[in-house]
């Protein structure tokens, strides 16, 4: 009999709970309809879940709502891991928020179909800058990257406005640094970094504490290793470039590899892998299997002296750490160094760094003009000052005073171009190479890691992976060229139909340049593919 009563109570409880929820939902639904009338709600979505960002954006939204009582501004942060899924469905479903952060999961086809061109925003002054030195400058000129980060070259239009920037730096536990070296100054060169790391290991041994010089993980280790590798290949790129070519050109590097002008056995490349191996010895063993938050946690807990990560983690780390933090650029080997000085030119230039946290406006938004006004408000000098002071991130508007905490993250304009990276490109241009290098990295940087073993492991598959990636790039370039044929038809016909329309003629002219730039790339890839397949 006892279990009968238990069951009865259970079912009753469930029934009551269910009824209460229903009443709450009905009530909320009713209240939402009733006050929905005079109210305009604009919503903006982004994937920056780091500490400090959400609270700062809420503050800015509150400021805007104070200025515009009739408008309600809602922030919608989405975790990075599912941002693409969320984005595709929201756009297709026409239920997308009015402002969306452009970047992850974005293709130019999606931008063209679902986002509004912002040329009018870019070329007119920002009303919210009234009373400041930027008062009559067009919005584009008030941003440090000239709104380049919001420009889509295949569409010849601005589609986004940046409100921040980003850079990769080395973070130090200053108190620990003072205990170990007596002085609180971060190392200037890679050689100083290595000697500091050795001192740290000795200190940890002496004290018997679980301390590691550099916190490593699948996410953080490549940040320092890729840059160090690219230092050793700076002169290689200069040597490979034919007369008349300066700087980095990934198709040419791939072609050089296929023609044998450089290989994994080139001395610069071996030296780059040696450098990656050496720096890997100062990270916690088995760091390959750790993820971003494991490394950050071990640094914040004082179990690692240094960590290399982006400026976006600065506020999270400062809030979690109980010690003072030092920040410096990732130290490069010095040109005098006997071992690593021969092949490098010097620190990397960040002059061309583009803005970050770029917001675009969705075509389907019924209150696009209010959304545009809020975007101008976000990108105004006063609000960007609030943004950098509160969130600790880099500002995007020019002429903003940054706090001493943010200063070390500002882009460094003095410096050279990077050489090639372990999988030639830093980003996603050669995904198969990225995968090949990634799944063999443990042979290079592990405790028993060795450059020779690593090279022998990736050499057999390197050429095929490169050809596979070149085919993929060829496919993408061909897609763009075929798509541009119909675009060109539309632009040319419109321009020729009204000869005196200067703007249409200029758009056709600009489009012909961007289309033939893409065609040049298409033919160069095809040419090196045909050469490679012949061999």
């Amino acid at each position, binding site marked *: 009999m006892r279990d009968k009563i238990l*069951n*009865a109570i259970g079912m009753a409880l469930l*029934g009551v709970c*269910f009824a209460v929820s*229903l009443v709450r*939902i009905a009530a909320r639904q009713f209240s939402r309809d009733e006050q929905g009338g005079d109210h305009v709600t604009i919503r903006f979505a982004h994937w920056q879940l780091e500490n400090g960002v959400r609270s700062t954006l809420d503050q800015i939204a509150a400021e805007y709502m104070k200025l515009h009582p009739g408008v309600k501004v809602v922030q919608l942060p989405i975790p990075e891991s599912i941002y693409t899924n969320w984005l595709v469905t929201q756009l297709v*479903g*026409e*239920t*997308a928020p009015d402002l969306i952060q452009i970047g992850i999961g974005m293709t130019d*086809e999606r931008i*063209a*179909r679902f986002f509004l061109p912002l040329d009018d925003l870019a070329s007119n002054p920002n009303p919210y800058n009234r009373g400041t030195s930027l008062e009559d400058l067009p919005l584009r000129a008030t941003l*440090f990257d000239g709104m380049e980060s919001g420009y889509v*070259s295949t*569409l010849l239009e601005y589609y986004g406005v940046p409100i921040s920037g980003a850079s990769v730096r080395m973070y130090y536990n200053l108190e620990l640094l003072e205990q170990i070296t007596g002085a609180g100054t971060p190392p200037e060169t890679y050689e100083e970094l290595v000697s500091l790391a050795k001192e740290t290991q000795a200190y940890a041994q002496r004290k018997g504490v679980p301390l590691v010089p550099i916190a490593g993980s699948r996410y953080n280790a490549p940040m320092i290793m890729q840059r160090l590798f690219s230092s050793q290949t700076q002169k290689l790129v200069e040597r490979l470039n*034919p*007369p*008349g*070519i*300066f*700087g980095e050109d990934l198709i040419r590097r791939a072609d050089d590899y296929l023609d044998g002008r450089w290989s994994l056995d080139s001395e610069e490349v071996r030296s780059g892998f040696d450098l990656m191996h050496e720096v890997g010895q100062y990270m916690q063993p088995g760091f390959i299997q750790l993820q971003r938050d494991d490394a950050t946690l071990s640094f914040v807990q004082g179990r690692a002296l240094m960590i290399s990560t982006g400026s976006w983690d600065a506020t999270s780390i400062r809030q979690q750490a109980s010690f003072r933090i030092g920040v410096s650029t990732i130290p490069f080997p010095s040109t005098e160094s006997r071992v690593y000085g021969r092949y490098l*030119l010097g620190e990397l*230039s960040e*002059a*061309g760094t583009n803005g970050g946290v770029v917001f675009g406006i*969705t075509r*389907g938004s*019924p209150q696009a003009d209010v959304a545009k006004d809020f975007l101008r408000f976000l990108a105004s000098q006063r609000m960007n000052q609030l943004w950098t002071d509160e969130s600790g991130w880099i500002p995007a508007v020019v002429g903003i005073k940054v706090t001493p905490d943010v200063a070390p993250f500002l882009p460094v304009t*003095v410096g*050279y*171009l990077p050489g090639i990276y372990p999988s030639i490109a830093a980003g996603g241009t050669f995904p198969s190479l990225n995968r090949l290098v990634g799944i063999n990295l443990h042979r290079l940087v592990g405790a028993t890691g060795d450059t020779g073993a690593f090279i022998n492991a990736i050499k057999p598959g390197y050429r095929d992976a490169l050809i596979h990636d070149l085919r993929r790039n060829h496919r993408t370039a061909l897609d763009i*060229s*075929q*798509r541009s*044929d*119909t*675009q*060109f*038809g*539309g632009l*040319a*016909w*419109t321009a*020729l139909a009204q000869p005196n329309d200067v703007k249409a003629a*200029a758009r*056709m*002219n600009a489009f*012909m*340049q*961007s289309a*033939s*730039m893409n*065609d*040049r790339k*298409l033919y*160069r890839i095809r*040419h090196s593919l045909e*050469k490679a397949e*012949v061999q």
Partner: protein
Amino acid sequence: MKTPRGLPFNRPRYQIAAAAALAVGLVAGWSHIKPSGDGAGTKRPTTLEGAWQAAAAFLFNDANNTFNAARLEPSQERERELGKAVTLLNVQPRTVENIAKARRIFETLSSGEDHDEPAIFSDYYLARIYERYETPPEPRKARTYYLKLLEKHAGHPVAEFGASAMVLMALYDNITPEERGRRFAGLEALGASLETSSGRRDYHLNMGNAYIDFEASREKALNHLLAADAETISLWQVESATWISIAELARDEGRDDLAEAYYKRFLSKYRRDNRHYSIERRLGALKNPKNMTADER
């Protein structure tokens, strides 16, 4: 199993719970049935002009529908056919049949006796189809159409856009250096016949970059890029790269004044560029070679 005591009407507990949950669930649903998805998609273009603009903005299916549906006078029929074919190249999902249908329309428009705009566009698109839609591509047929365009419609921007395509097709072929040298010479004459600034610019850019890629001739590469720059390049990526190439080639050719001029033009216009510092050092080295470290040549 014994049969239960009579028909089990007396187990109310389950029946009430199940019925209640189901009924109330339906009620809850009603308040939600009308989702508040309120985004109004892009408005459908209705006029021909709107269709061409839609085609220029990636909205290929909308443009194609408008071209098919638009009510027009007979004089605009050829424009409608052209529009249909141009958008058919990219109507989603893309199929081989669509490309073939587009080609048939272009062929009918091109063979008509009056050489109006649709005919010119059709010849251009037939060349493009043989150049990069056919698998494997047929460069010879494409060349005949490009040449036909240049002969019959000199001075037409679309016709002259084909010239730069011919350069790429001819030079980036799998041929011996000698054959490529002959083709370079053959193509040199082409430049003179071009009348539009855009045609000349794209032609010279392709020729200049080809001379660099194949390291055929520094001097010719320099001249072509200078000719291209004379036509004013408005795309910053192309302009900055061209200025640097001109400066580098001029320096290698010993024309230091030209090199210095272009280094300075780049440095003043492109302050925010990762190459800025390196180009400053190269300009410094040009002026007084002694303070340049050995390996920065």
